[in-house]
Structures are given as C-alpha cells and as structure tokens.
C-alpha cells in the first residue's frame, strides 16, 4: 500500500526557501500571500496490506531517516 508523508520545518525554524518564494510571488503580483513554508513530501510504496502496520513502519522511517527531528516535524497521511 501507499503511504504519504509530509515533513515540515518546525515552527520558528528559519525557512530561507519559503521566504524567497513568498517574495517572488509578491513580486509576480500575488500580493496577498503572507507566508510560504516549504516542506517535503514522500510517496512510499510499502509491501504491507495491514494499514496499521504500514503506518507504524512509516513512523519508524520518519524518525530514523525521513525527518530531521532537530528541525523538522512529520505527519503521516
């Protein structure tokens, strides 16, 4: 089954990319954009039929590799 994971920067952690994107959008005429924060998205295909088990695996993968918990949070969706 497919598991989707979103990894985002923790609140307060500087996001230089997001800032540059926001400024560019403003410059392009999108003037009501107040903040952009960029994160990562993963589609993971796990050979596992049991959703619960797959999510537990995904959680472990996030902790060990996909997210850098020093600066990032993750969400399995």
């Amino acid at each position: 089954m497919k598991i989707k994971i979103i990894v985002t920067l923790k609140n307060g952690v500087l996001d230089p990319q997001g800032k540059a994107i926001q400024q560019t959008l403003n410059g392009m005429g999108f003037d009501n954009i107040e903040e952009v924060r960029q994160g990562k998205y993963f589609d993971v295909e796990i050979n596992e039929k049991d959703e619960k088990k797959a999510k537990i695996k995904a959680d472990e993968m996030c902790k060990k590799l996909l997210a850098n918990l020093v600066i990032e949070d993750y969400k399995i969706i």
Partner: protein
Amino acid sequence: MKVDQKVAIEHGLKKEEFDKICELLKRVPNIVELGIFSAMWNEHCSYKSSRLHLKKLPTKGKEVIQGPGENAGVINIGDDDAIVFKIESHNHPSFIEPYQGAATGVGGIMRDVFTMGARPIANLNSIHFGSTQHKKTKNLLRGVVRGIGGYGNCIGVPTIAGQTCFDESYNGNILVNAMTLGLVKKNKIFYSKAAGLNKPVIYVGSKTGRDGIHGASMASAIFDDKIEEKKPTVQVGDPFTEKLLLEACLELMAGDSIISIQDMGAAGLTSSSIEMASKGKLGIELNLNKVPCRETKMTPYEIMLSESQERMLIVLENGKEQLAKKIFDKWNLDFAVIGKTTNSKKIELYFDNEKVADIPVDTLVENSPMYDRKWKKSKLPKKNKIEKDKFKNLKITNVLSKILSNPNICNKDWIWQQYDHTVMGDTIQKPGGDAGVVRIHGTNKAVAASVDSSAVYCWAHPLTGGKQIVCESWRNLVSVGAKPIAITNCLNFGNPEKDENMGEFVECVQGLGEASKYLDFPVVSGNVSFYNETKDKGIKPTPSIGGVGLIKEYKKMVTLDLKKLNNIVLVIGKTEGHLDQSIFNRDILNQKNGPPPEINLFNEKNNGETLLNLMMNDLIKSAHDVSLGGIIVALAKMCIKGKKRNKIK
C-alpha cells in the same frame, strides 16, 4: 522572572561569578542583564581560561597589519594589498546537526572576514571525526561535507584546501573548523571600534528569530545524555542572504559612511554591540522594538541572545542613513536604525518604553573573569626500541598499501570535489596538493594557504606537538613555493577545569608560540574551543593551524606531482629513523606509545629557506613535505599524482 543564584547557575555561571556580577552592578541583575552577562562571561566569548596563555603568543611581525583582537587578522602582501584571515570552530553545533552546523560555521567565518571590508577569496576547513567504524561517523561526515559545500558553493568562494582526520577520540565530539581568506586594500580596512557620539547604530541583514539562543554557552558546555534537549538552539544557514549581505556591505564600504562594523556571531546582538562600545570606550543605547523580528512576541531577552545568522551591526556617520538604506533595499535586506552611541559607557536597552537593561560596558569586558587554571605538565614519553625482527615478516608492498588505505592518508578527492574550488577563476592550485593557491586577481601575485593539525603528536607530547604543527604548516607553504607570512589557529581542547586538559592546552600553546616565534611566522587571529568532551571523555588535543604565505610570481608556483622522467629525487633534512607515533608504528606494529618526532627549529628554517631559494631559481620541478606516513607515502603521492614510477635505492 526573579534572578537568583539558581537561575545564574542554570545560565552556566559559577556561584562566585554571580556574586561578582552583583558586586559590580551593586545590585542583582534582571533576567535580560543576566542573559547578557552569561553570554559575555562564558568561555567562548570571554576566553577566561585561555587569555592568560594566549598573551604569550607572538603576534607581531613586519607584515602584520592587525593581530588578534579584531574580527580577523590582517597581513600585508605588498602593493597596498592585504589579506584578512581567520579560522573558527563550529564543533558543538555540527555534532548536533551536521549540515546546518557546518554550513553556519562557514557562513560565520566568512562574515568575520568581510566585516573587515575584504572580499573572501578562499575557504579552507579542518574536520575531525570519530573512527570510521563508529556508527555515527558516516552520517556526520556526510552532513558536514554537504554543509560546508552547501554554504561555500552558494556564496561563490572557492574551497581550496583542507584536512580530514579520523580518530576514536572524536567519536562523541567532532571538530569542524572553517577558515576564510579575504582580500582588501590596505587603506580600506574596517574595524569594530565605535567612535563619535550620537551616531546611528544600524541593524542589517536577516530578521531575528529565536534560533540559537544561548549558542555561545552551548559552545562552552559538555555534552551529556541531555544533548537532545539542547537541540532547539540549532541555527539554520541561509547562504543566499549571506551572499546578498556580502555584496551590500562591500557596496556600502566603497563609500565613507561606515564608522565601525561588526558581524553578529556568537551571542548575536549582545556581543556585537558591546564589543563596539567597549573598543570605542563609548556607550550604546538600543531600542529593541526597532529590531526586525521574524517571530511574534519576542522578548528583549530573546532578541539580545538570538544567534540568527546573516546579520550585521553598523555605526554610521550621521546623515548617511538614506544612502545606506538604499543599498540594503536594493539587495532586499532588512535595514533598521536601532539605536545610537552615547557617552555613558553603558549598554542601555529599551523595550516598550521601558529600560530593560543598564550595564556598564567595562563590567562585561575588562572585568570579565580571567582564570589561571591548574595545569599538569606532560612528561616526554620514552622512545620505543626499534625491534628489527618484528619487521622480518612484513612485505614492504603490503605495508605500503595498508598505510595508503588508512583513512587519514587515503585520497580525499571525493570530499573536495563536492566543494567548488575553481569559482572566481583564480585557483591555480586545487586541493590535493600541499597548500591551496589562489592568484590575487589581476596581479602576478598569489597567496597559498593550508590548514594542519597533528593531534596524535600533541597527545603524545603537547609541547613538541605544538611546535610540530606550526612547522608542518610552514613546510606546506614552502612546498608550493610560498614565503610563509603568518598563521591563524583554532585550539580545540577538552575540559579546561581538568588539569591534564589544561596542561595539554598550556603546553601546546607554548610549543606553538616557540615555533612561530623562531620561524617569524606570527599568530594574527584565532579561536579557542574548550569542553570538547562527551561523558567525561575528552578529545585528543587538536590545535588546527591555518598558515598563509605569499608567492610573488605565481608562475613560479610548485606542485607535488612528478613531471618528467629521469629527474633527480632529493630528500632535504636528516632522516633519523624515528618511528614512534608514525602510522607504521601505530597501525602496523600496533604500538601507540612513545614520543613524537623531535623538532629542530634551526634546521626547519634553514631547510625551508634553502628550498624557497632553489625554487625562485627554477631548480625545483616538484616538492612535497614529508609528514604522516613518512618518505614512502610522500613519494607514493608524488608518483600517483604525476602518473610516474620511481626507483629508490
């Protein structure tokens, strides 16, 4: 929050230090003031354990324009040109978050250099990791290398040399030392000393966030099991903004608007403003509501102690605000007038129309603690007997291939090929040689730089080890045909409160000083990193020396690859058969005790100068210093690089 002894101790201050603060202020500080004291008085900013000993280093010389005490050292290289350079550690942050730690280390040292008006022209780094077998090493190494590249490549400054070492003493405490060289005209050097009353104090660069609060005290803390809790203090680097800041600052510096300028490094707004005031014997008044903030509801405490990156503090000439603002607007950077200079000799902070701190500057700087810590002298270990029958069963080719595959000796191309080493179009010697060399743009001159440490030697005998590294740096520069001029040093040691560690420090510094004095190779800048220790285990004493030399005619530069067949190979200097602490003894014979090789400064100087003379007369085709692994490794490297064979009798 009420301040008492307990709160002070949580801030890393000692009980006596807190008492002294109360005595100096004649009252108990409030929380903002306590934060400021704890930042200014910690080891990282105050050099309280090292100051006494650093004073003994030779810092003067014919070509020295600025020695230690400024953002970086400055040396003369003729024709009105000067080189600004410094090395700095970012060890603790890099262990917690290798990519960002290393990246912000590179960013920080570059800011130190361009703060003085110099355009960075070369980066170097010295990185030390735990054993290659240790489970953390691979990730840390990868993260650090990526971080160094990620920042330096983006700014567009070539990384021209470096050093990568592995030793189990760094298993729980890696070292990341970054060095930058910048070029400036002698009459356009900028300093941090504020001058004049009622001059506007300007904040430029990125906005302030909550990142890195108390980073400076983290740099002076020992890692323990609670290391995870310290994680939120990691800063994120933004090399893009730094590049803009660099260009904007240099643009403003081209005019005559700036009185003094200081980057916000460790302890951010606190140390930068206090340093400017202290050097200028002035006071500074800041309105913290004016500081551009990235996050909402930041308190004065947080604003003063944030270590957000890519920020600068400037004292401007009156009336130049509009001109300066225009430049920073053009580069899309924040710009704010946040205060002014005063004659109070105090640091006075306002927030929401209230005075939130009021501290005499001298209590933070001149009256900061200085310790003469107890230290233990090291004995010179006894030499091991050379037992020839142990060698009988060894085949030289096997030994050589084993030595060449030692992680400290083997090829590091895969590392430095991740660093842009040719941007700026003046790199004439890439990493892979004895020193990196860049031309001074548009002239016939070039500067050479290398960075070295020999922790094993320092560990075996700190005094000899200290001398050894300075000599190694000298030799590396000479090997490429450069006249050595001056050094910068990054002293990475364990806990100074332990007398063995303090002893290692004192004696390394002594050795360093003796050698640099004898070789007329003065120390112009540097940095001390103590408390490199995890769970009571300290690192091997690791002073890193960054040497800089001048090649008057770059066409005469020498490289180490063998060029032609039938050229003669010479060994300069006496080979005494010293094996203790060699890779051979340590790795092949598994014999880890014994003294490091002795240093004879007279011979060192004589050999180096003779070699330079021969080079200037075009008599030398290739040269390489004999170091780790001895003559056989040196020859092997010369052959491999030159794709030539060698016959040795």
